[in-house]
């Protein structure tokens, strides 16, 4: 492989919003403001179509198994089934429908498991701590927890993981 052909996320392990937008993986601004919607951060041609089957709305499609997923933003209701089932843990749900805050839904496969109401550490794509956020919803599917946290609006496209410090959970 020649370096010039290698996208920067293959060097850093961090994908930028611009790169995702170019691949058609970022919903338009007005859709984001309407309510929860899936952001599929899956820029490579992986032979996998679990997300297609995972979506009860039929909003995710792939022509060939190796294609990058296509999301029909109008069909997507932000249910986060795909967040729970994506083997690459590469799908998130962002909700920008409220004026003063945002909600981000991320997969979580660590211990301890937080409770609704707990404040957890918010992490960016590069592991940077972005403050703390309150857990508003949490559910589980085959040991992957799907956690929705309340975050400041300007962090909605940045927060992509949570970390629960031992003793931090009120559990």
């Amino acid at each position, binding site marked *: 492989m020649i370096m010039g052909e290698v996208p920067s996320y293959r060097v850093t392990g961090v994908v930028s919003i611009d790169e995702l937008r170019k691949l058609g993986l970022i919903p338009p601004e007005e859709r984001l403001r309407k309510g929860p919607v899936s952001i599929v951060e899956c820029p490579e041609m992986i032979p*996998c179509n679990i997300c297609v089957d995972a979506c009860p709305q039929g909003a995710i499609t792939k022509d*060939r198994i190796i294609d990058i997923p296509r999301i029909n933003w109008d069909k997507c209701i932000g249910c986060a089934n795909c967040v729970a089932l994506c083997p*690459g843990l*590469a799908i998130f749900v962002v909700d920008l429908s409220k004026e003063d805050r945002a909600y981000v839904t991320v997969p979580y*496969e660590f211990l301890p498991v937080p409770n609704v109401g707990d404040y957890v550490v918010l992490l960016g794509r590069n592991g940077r701590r972005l403050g703390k956020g309150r857990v508003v919803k949490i559910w589980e599917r085959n040991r992957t927890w799907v956690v929705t946290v309340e975050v400041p609006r300007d962090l909605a496209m940045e927060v992509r993981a949570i970390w629960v410090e031992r003793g931090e959970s009120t559990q």
Partner: protein
Amino acid sequence: MPPSKFVKDRRIWEHPIITFSRGRKVKFYFEGQEVEAYEGESIAVALYAIGIDVFSWSRKLLRPRGAFCMVGKCSSCFMVVNGIPNRRTCIEPVRDGIKVERQRGLAPIPTEIPKYPEHPEEVIKTDVLVVGGGPAGLLAAITAAEYGLEVLLVNEHFKLGGQLVKQTHKFFGSKELFGGLRGFQIAEVLRNRIRELKNIRVLLQTTAYGIFRDGWVGLVGQDRVYRVKPRAVIVATGACEQYLPFPGNDLPGVMGAGGAQTLMNEYGVRPGDVALVVGSGNVGLIVSYQLLQAGIRVEAVLEIMPYIGGWFVHAAKIRRYGVPILTRHTVKEVWGSDRVEGATIVRVDDKFNPIPGTERDISCDLVLLAVGLAPDTRLFAQAGAIMRWVPELGGLVPLRTPYLETSIPNLYVAGDASGIEEATTAMIEGEIAGLSTALSMGSANSKAEERREYLLKFLWNEYRASPLLARARSGKEKATVSVDEMNILRKKYPPLTSFG
């Protein structure tokens, strides 16, 4: 009971993905001292769990050797068990009362004569012999058995499932290909299917040691040997982890990435506290994430190339938790006395030469090598199958037709032994090989033929069509010849044996 001098407990009792259901307690003797383990653990795992880092001492320089592959492929866990030297303790289960001793240099010849069973030898005639109980072998056995063939499945380990049993991540693929399930869950599904099929006989802890003239295969089990006369053989022996040369690479604590997975994901034993991972292919990235899940700190993942080797999504999973992936970096040296205490890493230039002055020391007790795998193709080479050196596939592999038959008639290859890819393609190849045996024996119908064509088309035209899999795809192309080409080669280099 006197207080044990082995006070460490490296067992993991709480894990986000796996529930470790440990068997009853077992007591055995380690160098005269009574130690405890849990039924279902291997001897090496049980010793590692109580803090034994040194498994043996090298033969000439008596350097300490520790856990490395943990799947019966290397020799660092050789110990004396009940007087018998050179036992692979990583694939030998603990039993009550056994006596285990480490080896310093060459072991003495055993003096105790083992008790032989009444029938130390058995001759077996079967339709299909499957060697290897990993994803490829299990699919091959299931498929052949579903078409009514008598199947003998032999596995070196005391458990079926191969490397699936230590994969805690969810697999890519489609639902039909077990995608979305975690590796150990796929192993469970396949094991249950094997149990249902009454025409599969399973021999565990049994090694196929050689292929002989006139289509005979020799097996050696725990208390007997077998002479097998199969009509077809499918060899799915998997792969061995590659080594990397650097000073200190033999110190206990330098481990294959798969060895660490065996410890922490199969047996629930912490391989260390602070890790450095060498190699950012999928194995390196996935094992790093699994280390974090087991509560182990990962200082960095090193990658000698200027870009990450594995899928971006696997890299993103560890980057989100702050693990740095250092491209253009390699390990220069590892130090410690009886266990890794740290490593020096270094930047490399465009020609992969270390750049002086860029060295950095990292404190760690675990250095995991995830620098590739080599197909385990010893049986093919021994049988005289036509081999080809294919670097894209990890080394020497048998030449095969699209239906996975080698130059030895009715000897098939499937899975990583056919060239390194991953578990999903191994399962597809296993099924193709199983279908091929059924078709060649006339026990299959046109449905089997259609299924095989569908799988071949899917594998070559869809699955391997991803540009990121181009290297493996081109490797598999180099190792594959048409049936006509194979027949020409067979005339030129007549097979030394054949099945049928």
